[in-house]
């Protein structure tokens, strides 16, 4: 692992699927599923921040939980540094030491009966680090995330503000010296003035500890600020994957364009006059056949209801799952198939 090829992804996700059972018949057999994540592929490269955006129900949080095996995938493989997660080569416990998560709800994700210090020390001690070493590390981390250890180490979580609690969560995630942080809506519950502080902290920590981030958020402005590349999800599938500025200035997928079109202008003379798409996202229990977006898509044609478009390279780094960009798909706007 020391001589890792620079271009090999740190984390490789292939064919990730998660179906949640929702209904059972009289015999106790499951009769319907929510396909929360349905065939997701992506790579997380060493040192990058990969943003994941999408609306509620698109599967972005489920993907995060699957990554850490907090829930078991129905299908798919996750490889970390070339080794399959959960195999003998990379047991789950070792993987989780290297990949840590910060959740949206800073209060629910901390044990209310533990002090700040005990919360941070717990993980390293489980992994066999001596208490005094773990304590010293906890104090250094508290200092680093901007909480004076003398004042905060002995406090309980209810004595902290939302921003302070999220700093504790970040310190706790870093206590195992991981290589990857999965940030699932980590700043979404914070007020704007506090959010900016935590975003700056995350940027600083990334440089300092050489971290790789998977940054999940519904806030497109925050993702644009944080991410190097952005993955757009819709109803359990990847719609588009591209370098951040490519995506924000030259999105290809109609869903991405609608999402970006829903951003508010902040300019009283350029108020939104028409909604880019109508209706709510469909129910993931019974998702539309073919391309899952075709029921809301202005460019949809007959082919879109038939087959699901695969993720195809539009340019070297820009991937789109849309029949309009798939040569020979049968969509009127698709480029002609190269001979």
């Amino acid at each position, binding site marked *: 692992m020391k001589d890792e090829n620079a271009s090999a992804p740190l984390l490789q996700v292939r064919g990730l699927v998660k179906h949640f059972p929702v209904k059972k018949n009289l015999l106790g057999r499951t009769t319907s599923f929510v396909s929360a994540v349905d065939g997701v592929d992506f790579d997380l490269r060493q040192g990058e921040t990969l943003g994941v955006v999408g*609306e509620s129900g698109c599967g972005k949080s489920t993907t995060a939980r699957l990554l850490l095996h907090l829930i078991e995938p129905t299908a798919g493989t996750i490889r970390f540094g070339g080794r399959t997660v959960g195999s003998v080569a990379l047991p789950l416990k070792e993987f989780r030491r290297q990949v840590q998560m910060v959740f949206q709800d800073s209060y629910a994700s901390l044990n209310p009966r533990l002090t700040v210090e005990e919360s941070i020390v717990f993980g390293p001690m489980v992994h066999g680090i001596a208490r005094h070493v773990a304590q010293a590390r906890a104090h250094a981390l508290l200092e680093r995330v901007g909480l004076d250890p003398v004042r905060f180490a002995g406090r309980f979580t209810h004595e902290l503000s939302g921003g302070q609690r999220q700093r504790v969560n970040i310190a706790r995630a870093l206590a195992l010296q991981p290589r990857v942080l999965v940030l699932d809506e980590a700043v979404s519950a914070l*007020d*704007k003035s506090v959010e900016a502080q935590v975003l700056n902290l995350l940027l600083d920590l990334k440089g300092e500890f050489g971290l790789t981030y998977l940054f999940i958020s519904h806030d497109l402005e925050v993702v644009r600020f944080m991410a190097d590349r952005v993955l757009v999800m819709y109803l359990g599938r990847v719609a588009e994957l591209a370098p*951040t500025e490519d995506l924000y200035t030259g999105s290809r997928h109609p869903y991405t364009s609608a999402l970006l079109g829903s951003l*508010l202008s902040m300019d*009283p003379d350029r108020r939104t006059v028409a909604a880019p798409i109508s209706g*709510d996202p469909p*129910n993931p229990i019974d998702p539309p056949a073919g391309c899952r977006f075709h029921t809301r898509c202005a460019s949809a044609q007959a082919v879109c209801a038939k087959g699901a478009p695969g993720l195809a390279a539009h340019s070297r780094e820009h991937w789109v799952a849309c029949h309009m960009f798939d040569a020979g798909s049968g969509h009127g706007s698709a480029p002609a198939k190269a001979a």
Partner: protein
Amino acid sequence: MTGSILEIRDLRVAFTGAAKPVRAVDGVDLALVPGEVVALLGESGSGKSVTLRSILRLHPENKTRIEGSIVAAGIDVMALSGAALADFRGKTVSMIFQEPMLALDPVYTLGAQITEAIRKHESGVSADAARKRALGLFERVRIPSPERRLDSYPHELSGGMRQRAMIALALACNPKVLLADEPTTALDATVQVQILLLLRELQRELDLAMIFVTHDIGVGVEVADRIAVMYAGRIVEIGAVRDVIRAPRHPYTIGLLSTRAQGGRLSGKRLPTITGSPPDLASLPPGCAFAPRCSSATSACLEAAPAAVELGHGHAVRCIHTAAVA
């Protein structure tokens, strides 16, 4: 102000349930003319929702101390009680909430809830007539297949549709003032835009006065004529949307506008921040509540709460340093 449909004067709200009273609202003055939309902008704990709820007297009386005056459509809200208060709610002033799932009754159909509201407030309306009006309201908020949806229960609708149903319910008795408490915060971006456009359209057609509470400046800019920025229970800046967005004068407003992560990151750029965190409302400092976080604070800021400084065109700021610059 003459001709105002809603006038709040020196509103003070303190919650007395805890050991120390929490001063959630600390002297708010606000007046709306008919058909005007004011966005009440602030972070959590700034008192924006408490101000809004005071207008309908929704706070538990035994644990709340309210002072000041509120007059809505000529009715002295503070003097209301019992049946008169129940009649006032929904008929003169109505409200929509952030979470329709909590605001709507889960065991009655949407149609039943709307017809009940109409028949309770207007005696002599038959059940059929009320149902017809409910159908009209559902068409107006553009719920697809409205006839069928009237017989749906709240849990059978998607989030966006539930929010539309709640708007229909709020408008059922033709109120003159609509209070909106973060009605789009829980919605997805593509749905939020649809609801904002709907509210703006209905507000114009019905000539409603509206107070729109939000933490999102972008939402405020989208719907409001004026923006009032709240901090620690006071309106620290108020003015026409253009003035507040383009030429903010209070250090807090300036800070809020600059902390937004907008337009992406130029290589390695950090976000400008407001240091510290919002104050404890149970022990507010005697002076300007923002002073401990303000980079231009001087010792004079800590002495007394700053009075509002008029900058013209209804733009007013509570900061002692603003007068010197103006």
